[in-house]
């Protein structure tokens, strides 16, 4: 019985640690999602906030200058 309780306690500890770590790492998050494991560029997020400029994609093509932001004065 105590072994099974240890398993439950360990699982809860790991979950708490993982969610705590995630909270610390993403507390000032401006990046919407983490990149995936397999290859390929990250698609643009559909969960952009309602207002504000869209951040430039880190996967923009090499050529051509970045256009000026319409939100800049």
């Amino acid at each position: 019985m105590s072994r099974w309780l240890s398993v439950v306690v360990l699982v809860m500890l790991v979950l708490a640690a993982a969610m705590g770590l995630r909270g610390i790492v993403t507390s000032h998050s401006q990046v919407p999602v983490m990149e995936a494991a397999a290859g390929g560029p990250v698609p643009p997020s559909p969960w952009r906030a309602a207002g504000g400029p869209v951040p430039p994609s880190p996967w923009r093509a090499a050529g051509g200058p970045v256009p000026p932001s319409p939100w800049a004065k």
Partner: protein
Amino acid sequence: MLGSADYAIWLLAASCEACVVVCVFSTRSARRYLPIVFHMLGEFLATIGRFVIFRRYGYTSHEYFYFYYYSDALVVICLYFVLIGLFAQVFEEMKVSQYLRVAALLLLCGTAWITYSIVADSRGRLLTHFVVELSQNLYFVGVVLTYLLWGAVVKLQETRTRLVQLVLSLGVYFSAFAVTYALRNLYPGFSLWQYTPPLLGIALPAAWAYTFLKVPEGARLATAQVAAPGR
């Protein structure tokens, strides 16, 4: 449009993932490392599938978005089982596989439940929100599990070189991902971050391929002699 460096990284990632599968089969380790085979095969298929969908529908398409994140969730779940498989190997002499299986299932269910609690309030596309959040939460569960596994490897004085290298590669991979993510949030304008995650995605299969190719199953670390040369 992507640059040639992006395509090169994409191709290199697919090659490394295929290389791991070939190395595992060529060294006749497939039975022992079945979760790694499934994970790398899944990564390879996801990489190829993403490229096909990217070419057909484009970068900003819904098809690419959905395939990217749904395939990522599956790949991360496979990675979770790779970790559990490594736990099983480290603890195989202690005969605790039954407890390990239950703990793994409980942890996966707990992560899914927490993820659902996070996304339950979102309007629409609940499943997609859930899938994206689940894969992110599993990343962080993976970070913690890898550190636990490394602690067990050190505590139990594990000497199997191949196993130690596999665990260390995973530790570097998860830690570097978390650090990159944190630093990207702190310094979003720094251009190096755009290439770090894809390069990390290449580093893990490359390290595993090297391990399977160069380190035989019977190789042992001589930690005891190093720690106590006079005995």
